[in-house]
């Protein structure tokens, strides 16, 4: 479904991503774990077409991706951002936010789709005409998820979707994402600094450090303590340390 080959990203003089490669099958969930500055979000944004100036090869369903993406790309690939306070337009109501992708892609029955989208993320119809600042963090992230899914994409890119939320809200959003993924057969890439969150949602993951993938493994072996790279082992130890 998605293949990334030898991806490099440079910002000015900073070499943020240094030769990252991975492949994801359709319907699979893939996690990118790393600390801040490891380049994990940059990989995601390059894949989404949000940053220029990358080199390497990326393909979606066998078709190579260029610097500019067409409308069909945005129809099949959508993203949920980290900060639910920054990813919703502050002067648009939820209704307007959800209607925008429908208008861009020229989809009919907007009214029914908006109602269904809100229902799907378990938001009451009351919030439809509210502004983002009138909603809680968890509600906003649900709106962001509804927006990402409203034009029926097949790939969902998740950039730290729960790290700005309280743990109890995080649990709700993670459950919601798991349900939606199963119901819609989505291919997901989840970027997070939290190993436990990635392990909860993904079957495979890659650990990044300083712009490189230092280890790629499946979650079962991670849980079984079979990680090889010292950085992965460090992250596992820290995560375990707080669970005891």
């Amino acid at each position, binding site marked *: 479904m998605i293949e990334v080959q030898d991806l490099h990203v440079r910002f000015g003089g900073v070499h943020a991503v240094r030769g990252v490669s991975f492949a994801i099958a359709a319907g699979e969930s893939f996690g990118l774990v790393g*600390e*801040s500055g490891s380049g994990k979000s940059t990989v995601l944004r390059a894949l989404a077409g949000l940053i220029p100036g990358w080199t390497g090869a990326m393909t979606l369903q066998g078709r190579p991706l260029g610097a500019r993406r067409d409308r069909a790309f945005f129809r099949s690939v959508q993203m949920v951002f980290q900060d639910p306070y920054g990813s919703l337009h502050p002067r648009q109501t939820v209704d307007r936010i959800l209607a925008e992708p429908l208008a861009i892609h020229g989809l009919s029955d907007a009214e029914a789709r908006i109602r269904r989208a809100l229902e799907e993320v378990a938001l009451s119809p009351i919030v439809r005409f509210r502004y983002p600042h009138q909603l809680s*963090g968890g509600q906003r992230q649900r709106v962001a998820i509804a927006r990402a899914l409203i034009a029926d994409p097949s790939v969902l890119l998740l950039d730290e979707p729960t790290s700005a939320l*309280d*743990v*109890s*809200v*995080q*649990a*709700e959003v*993670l*459950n919601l994402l*798991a349900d939606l993924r199963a119901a819609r057969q989505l291919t997901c890439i989840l970027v997070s*600094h*939290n*190993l*436990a*969150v990635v*392990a*909860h949602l993904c079957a495979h993951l890659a650990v990044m450090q300083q712009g490189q993938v230092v280890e790629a493994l499946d*979650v079962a072996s*991670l*849980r079984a303590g079979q990680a090889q790279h010292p950085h992965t082992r*460090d*992250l*596992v130890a*820290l*995560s*375990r*340390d*707080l*669970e005891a």
Partner: protein
Amino acid sequence: MTHPLVEIADLRVDFPGPNGFVPAVRGVSLTMGREKLGIVGESGSGKSVTGRALMRLLPPQARVAGSLRFDGIDIAAATPRAMRKLRGARIGLVLQDPKFSLNPVMTAGAQIAEAWATHQRGSARDARDAAMRLLEQVLIRDPRRVFDAYPHELSGGMGQRVMIAMMLAPEPDLLIADEPTSALDATVQAEILRLIDRLVSDRGMGLMLISHDLPLVFRFCDRVAVMYAGRVVEEVAAKDLHAATHPYTRGLLDCMPRLDAPRARLPVLTRDPAWLA
């Protein structure tokens, strides 16, 4: 007669909203000695407001009621002058993001030296030496380089160490750390907390660690107060974490994804209106 270090009795704080006052803290009573007390809660639980009320750092429009005592001193009745002496000299505050709490146009060393000189007597040279010593104490490997560095040249973890050094300069009795590591990576977070832990234990200070991260607070504190909607719903010794009884505490512990135990679904916290009563 000896006083407890901090005595908070029936603290209530309200903030003005568009439709009258909105309560942020609704009757909190806490007592702590020279120990490590954790205050945990989710956003809006009133945990930070409680810490700030103790330093009298709330905005002037906030309405504060109840009694706040630090080492027997009535915080509510203290003069602004007495408060300035208390802040920094006897109570230190470490905030979430060192980027915002350090002065961007002063070198790290100068800021620590200034913090030292404000509360201790000595020449500029003494202050400089003290600052260098403090930088060594917060385990900065190259104190000379950090001394002359500006805040933007430091990483998040390094900035937080400088902040801690600054707060320790006047040798306070109590350190309030409000989400001191939330902006940091997991590896750095552990280092900083171990550092705070060691410094506080060595100096016999009190530590009030305010955080949203329940496991983290239990890991580093002696005693934990769990706050929900402006109240302390449960106080437990950290070693008895697993014996916590309040459904909110249990719910918070349960709803986190765990590396050691895969689960298809995470249990969701249902908020019982009775907790507000």
